[in-house]
């Protein structure tokens, strides 16, 4: 059994199915991100893990110990987890020191050790010297550091983070992102991080769990989830993607031949693809090279006609008509074409992912 074992979790709020059949295994020291749009169930899953919500079905084990089931839930205070909230949730009636010392005092740690450990953790998050301040006198970034220090000081085995950076401005967000990652590597605490920002998820995580409509869509490393999306929803959510409709011609294991308009290309495919259903080939705009070079081994070549180019500074965004459907290509800014020009799109086979097309998302 994995360190954290989530099995068959269902949770409803009235008629709304917030979670259904969640299965997850998370290892110790992992940095795992729950990613998805708002209302997808990621925060519900985190709060169930924290013990704030009772699942309707299923179980959660941590370190072999049953923490949650529909019958009984170990209350949050007995889970030895830490949690950082989106709105910081720093107690406004306590000083920075009192905020951080709160958990230690509950553990009946003696006075000298409390002040030692508090100053050590405040040092680690860069808040030394602010012990006496009250939260009202701190910036958003500083408050978030207090929240972090407060959770870390009790040395939890698991730290839950609920969109901790979303209230910070862009620059600070990027800096805190780096700090969080360093902190996780250094402490070895298992981080479970909730966000709706795919860039944040990719920058931070060992593994990403993509949620949608209360179900897990895909679990994998950032590269897996970006390059080999399990379905159209994941492909779309992780970044800009061309979804080219086609029909399956033949399939052998993980590779397939797909007909797009008049042309046929090779693609890789996810498991469980239904040959009778509509097929979509997902291709990232930056994976396509434009040119008239001869076909390279391991690449598809598609003929198209350039419709429009937009200069965006670091890249040029091209709209290209391929067999009646419009594709976007992010090209080199040195390479220019006239509208109406015939161009070849060169795409590595590994960048063409064939998937079921008739999914509602």
């Amino acid at each position, binding site marked *: 059994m994995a360190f954290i074992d989530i099995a068959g979790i269902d949770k409803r709020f009235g008629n709304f199915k917030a979670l259904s059949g969640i299965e997850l295994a998370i290892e110790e020291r992992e940095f795992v991100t729950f990613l998805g749009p708002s209302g997808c169930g990621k925060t519900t899953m985190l709060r169930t893990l924290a013990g704030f919500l009772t699942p309707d079905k299923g179980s959660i084990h941590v370190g072999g*110990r049953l923490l949650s089931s529909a019958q009984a839930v170990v209350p949050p*205070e007995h889970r030895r987890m830490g949690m950082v909230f989106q709105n910081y949730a720093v*107690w406004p009636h306590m000083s920075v020191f009192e905020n951080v010392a*709160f958990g230690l005092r509950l553990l009946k740690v003696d006075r000298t050790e409390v002040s030692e450990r508090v100053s050590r953790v405040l040092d680690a998050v860069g808040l030394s010297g602010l012990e006496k301040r009250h939260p009202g006198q701190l910036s958003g970034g500083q408050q978030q550091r207090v929240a972090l220090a407060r959770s870390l000081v009790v040395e939890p085995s698991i730290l839950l983070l609920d969109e901790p950076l979303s209230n910070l401005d862009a620059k600070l967000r990027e800096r805190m992102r780096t700090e969080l990652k360093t902190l996780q590597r250094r402490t070895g605490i298992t981080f479970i991080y909730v966000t709706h920002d795919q860039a944040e998820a990719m920058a931070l995580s060992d593994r990403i769990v993509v949620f949608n409509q209360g179900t897990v869509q895909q679990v994998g490393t950032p590269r897996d989830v970006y390059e080999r999306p399990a379905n159209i929803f994941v492909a779309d959510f992780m970044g800009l993607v061309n979804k080219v409709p086609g029909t399956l011609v033949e399939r052998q294991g993980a590779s397939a031949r797909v007909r797009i308009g008049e042309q046929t290309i090779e693609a890789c495919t996810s498991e469980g693809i239904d040959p009778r259903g509509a097929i979509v080939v997902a291709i990232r705009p930056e994976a396509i090279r434009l040119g008239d070079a001869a076909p390279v081994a391991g690449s598809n070549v598609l003929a198209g006609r350039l419709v429009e180019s937009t200069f965006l500074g670091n890249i040029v965004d091209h709209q290209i008509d391929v067999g009646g459907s419009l594709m976007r290509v992010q090209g080199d800014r040195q390479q220019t074409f006239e509208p109406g020009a015939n161009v070849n799109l060169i795409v590595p086979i590994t960048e063409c992912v064939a998937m079921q097309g008739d999914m509602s998302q």
Partner: protein
Amino acid sequence: MQAAASAPGADPAHGRPATSKISFQGLVLGFAVALLLFLVGYPLLWLILGALGVPQSLGFEHLQRAFARPQNYAALINTLQLALGTGVMSVLIGVPLAWATSRTNMPLRYLVHALVALSYIMPPYLTALAYIFLLGPEAGHFNRLLQGLFGFESGPLNIFTMPGVIFVIGIHVFAFTYFLTYSALKSVDASLEESAQVLGAKRWQTTLRINLPLVAPAITGGALLSAIDSLALFGPQAIIGTPAQIVFLPTRIYATIGSYPPRWAEASALSLVLVLLTVAGLALQRGYLERRSYITVSGKGVRTQLLDLGPARWLLLAFCMTVVFFSAIAPVGTLTINAFSKSWTDPLSFSNLTLEHFRSALFEDQVAVRGIINSFKLATSAAAIAVLIGAAVAYLDLRTNVRGRRLLDYLAILPLGLPGTVMAVGILLAFIRLPIPIYGTIWILLAAYVARFIPLATRSANATFRQIDPSLEEAGRITGASWFHAIRRILMPLSRPGLLVAFLLVFIPAFGELSATILLYTGGTETIAIAIYRLNDLGQLEVVSALAVFTIVVVLTLAALVNWLSGSSWSSSETPAVRG
């Protein structure tokens, strides 16, 4: 706190069992809910059963028989006249005042605003009492003044008439219309007026065609609230109406229960009619206030434009000062002067001054002293219990998803629309049958006060908890605090000012409560209001005035404390939100 038994699957290494669903939390909240059901739900049930003739019979014949009596029918007609009269009066004086203090450059706006607040805070039976001194047909100060000025043979004005009752109640309840109109006018952004002016409208046209229609729902809503409140004011109805032999529903209910033997079924039938009138009025009022949606309430501060009235502003000030003179200055003033005068009919002079009445009111008169002690005891305990229940109801509503919490919230707000007389009838019917010997003791008064004023505590606690983000408590839990510890160390310190306001909001009306007390007190359990009422009947008017002044001072001091704690003026009661 972890009272639950060891559950299967608990890891002995951690030594902590999974909790079952019954907990300390459940016990605390459950107790509060049980108290609410017992104090509010149970009496209300009996009120309805009583009107239908239970336990003797079941049906509508009691209702029919009640209104076959001409006295009851007259009481109904009088009550409707009273409501209509005060509703109209509240618009006639409340709207111009609200406009003057919110949108014009009239001088002394804040003084006028504060004096309207004073006329609202003052217990209405004290206003009524003051007007016996001011407009009594023989010796009333105003009547004697008019006699002196114009040579009338007898006093030209008589308070002991239907217009007199409407006047005395109207100068109290117009505050509803005033405050609702005031805050509506304050929330009309200047850009709405400026748009009209850009199109060529003059300032007075803007006022009539933009401002007034925008706040019309607030005016109607306020007038309805004023009318509903006037239905329930037993004190002035009895103090002015009863000597004039004008009977209203509350005073009629009092008479039916006071008769021998008490006519319970008739009293509950009348109560039910009074409740129906109130409920109908409140439903109508809610409908009007919902249409307020076209007043644009945005998060941003509203910019208001003050109308420059020129010399006319002095005329408007004269009107406003006249209104507040009659509603606040004259009643408070006359009671104060009486309390310090050897004889109230003698003119004010240095030789006529005395502290004698205060000595007898506060130290000597047995009923008065007992009343003061009882009122302090009752108001303190009622406020404490109401805050406890109110906080539990608000907590259940905002922090849990317990089934039925909405219904509970509704039950805790319901007594707001119930006249004190009706609440007392319900409590009498319900508790007279209980084996607990509570009837005829001070406990029945405590039960009635808690039941009557629980909505004030609940609303206040609800507003307080709403401003404290739940994640603050959750952060405590996940850091290792039990439910009780998180409540004690996080929720309570953060909500203390708000809950203190809730306590005072119950204490203030409970301290001077009359309409329920009059039906429930017995010898030994008199309150300050009963002392005033009874000493007034005995004609000890100077002692009554001293007690009245004492009551006003207590109530005003606490109201000022509420105002200071809320850190804002009467119009805007928002306190800064506590966020994590």
